């Protein structure tokens, strides 16, 4: 039954290809139906595609981790589909395909299938990254994605040679001991490019600054969450945290250099792109601290970051000048940026505090020092933009007025950020479930291989 989550958007996409423009109206309907189906499904079930049991056929795993990640991704897509202003002509079909592929990435229990869905997400992302002004950025992203896809494929093949089958649970149980380093390295390269780790994520600023408002919003929130989930699924459940110390170092590098590079940007979207790189680095290094708590707080921080980024990117992409005429956008922009920095009344503060406390309890003094240093820099450039946009005297050339539904969504997310700041257990419970699903790999293996 969980296959429906992938099939319905795909079917809608296929049917609406001849009349692309009208797809804009059915996009919200499709997302709502997938959400309803998701709510009807019970969290731990495994569906074998085509009736072939686990190590032989492809298996879709719906445990507590993938259930809540799907919930988050579909809600993000719902919010975006409710804002037709930012979706250009004909791109709704691409969004439908992207929704199908992100759901597929979360659900799949087979390494080659995850490669295929990763490629679908990548191809959809290249199309979204392209806009009149930015063909070169999209091309660079395509080359980088192509190469990383090839390495990911190599990793999958080595895993197949090592275990005899392509199933995640099978790989995690009986991969021959020599294969793990090489497979982990290649998969790390494959996912590293998408999850914005320092040296590999060269594409991020050019693609996020593609001129069309859709690109940063969907890539920065929905796709980032899916990739982070995939990272967690592979490196924790399948590899039992084997490669995480390397990822920790790369994460720290990403935070510091991401923030520094953001310091000199003179375009808001580029600065926010670097901020999302740094936040992704922070999430990755928190997760790679290892242990149930670390993963829980890592995903909690990711949830906060996603909600703040959603607001920031929408505003940065649509109107990037003074807020005097659209106040609601201005207020939600400030709230999101304060939550990003970690001022007390907002969500970001909670997750940063918990991450610091966790790092100290693991006697790791490097991560807090880096996090605090990065927050100082982040405070500098985010607040610079905040002030610039609130107090900019230039009467913006196009008096762009944000339409009411975009304002409404901005307000809802901003109030959610404040609500989480005061009562964090809504996000915490979600993060806890995701951490549960990812860490007890014994349940995962018995669920997939044992039961049929």
């Amino acid at each position: 039954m969980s296959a429906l989550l992938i099939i319905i958007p795909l079917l809608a996409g296929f049917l609406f290809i001849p009349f692309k423009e009208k797809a804009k109206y059915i996009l919200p309907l499709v997302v709502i139906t997938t959400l309803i189906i998701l709510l009807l499904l019970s969290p731990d079930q495994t569906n074998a595609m085509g009736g072939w049991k686990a190590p032989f056929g492809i298996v879709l795993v719906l445990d507590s981790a993938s259930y809540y990640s799907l919930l988050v991704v579909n809600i993000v897509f719902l919010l975006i589909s409710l804002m037709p202003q930012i979706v250009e002509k004909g791109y709704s079909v691409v969004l439908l395909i992207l929704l199908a592929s992100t759901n597929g990435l979360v659900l799949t229990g087979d390494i080659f299938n995850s490669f295929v869905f990763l490629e679908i997400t990548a191809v959809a992302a290249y199309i979204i990254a392209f806009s009149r002004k930015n063909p070169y950025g999209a091309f660079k992203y395509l080359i980088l994605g192509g190469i990383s896809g090839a390495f990911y494929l190599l990793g999958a093949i080595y895993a197949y040679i090592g275990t005899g089958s392509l199933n995640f649970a099978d790989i995690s149980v009986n991969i021959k001991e020599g294969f793990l380093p090489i497979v982990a390295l290649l998969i790390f390269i494959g996912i590293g490019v998408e999850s914005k780790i320092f040296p590999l994520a060269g594409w991020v600023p050019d693609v996020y600054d593609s001129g069309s408002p859709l690109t940063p919003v969907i890539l920065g929130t929905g796709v980032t969450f899916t990739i982070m989930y995939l990272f967690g699924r592979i490196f924790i459940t399948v590899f039992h945290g084997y490669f995480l110390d390397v990822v920790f170092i790369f994460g720290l590098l990403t935070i510091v250099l991401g923030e520094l590079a953001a310091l000199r940007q003179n375009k808001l979207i580029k600065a926010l792109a670097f901020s999302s790189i740094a936040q992704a680095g922070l999430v990755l290094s928190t997760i790679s601290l290892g242990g149930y708590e670390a993963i829980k707080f890592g995903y909690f921080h990711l949830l906060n970051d996603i909600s703040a980024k959603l607001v920031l990117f929408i505003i940065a992409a649509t109107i990037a000048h003074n807020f005097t005429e659209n106040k609601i956008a201005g207020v939600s922009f400030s709230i999101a940026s304060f939550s990003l920095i970690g001022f007390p009344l907002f969500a970001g503060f909670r997750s940063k505090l918990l991450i610091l406390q966790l790092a100290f309890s693991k006697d790791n003094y490097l991560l807090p020092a880096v996090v605090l240093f990065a927050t100082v820099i982040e405070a500098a450039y985010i607040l610079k933009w905040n002030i610039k946009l609130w107090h900019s005297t230039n009467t913006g050339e196009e008096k762009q007025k944000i339409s009411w539904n975009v304002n409404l969504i901005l307000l809802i997310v901003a109030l959610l950020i404040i609500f989480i700041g005061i009562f964090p257990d809504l996000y915490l419970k979600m993060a806890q479930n995701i951490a549960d699903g990812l860490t007890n790999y014994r349940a995962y293996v018995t669920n997939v291989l044992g039961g049929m």
Partner: protein
Amino acid sequence: MVYYIAFILIGVGIYGFLTQKNLFKHLVSLTIVDTAVNIFIISLGYIEGKEAPIYSKYTPIANFVDPLPQALVLTAIVIGVGTLALGASLLIKVYEKYGTLDVEQIATKEAEE
């Protein structure tokens, strides 16, 4: 033996990336890398003295090579084609905008903006 050919081909593809200036050559190197990976996957399935995995008059009983890599390659090739097609169309747009496909000239043009 074929593994060495596959690895050397990957090396050639990467070398193509590192040294070429023209963007279209990057696309070609990407295809080289893809084909090299496909060759490597196929070579992993070959078993000495066994036939192609098809039941037919000539090979009625199962005496076959490993069919799974061949199935995976089928998919990998099509993905390569998809990316290539999209890359080619993007290159058309890049050429339209910058008037050249040379990396340095594009960099100088972008610096002017």
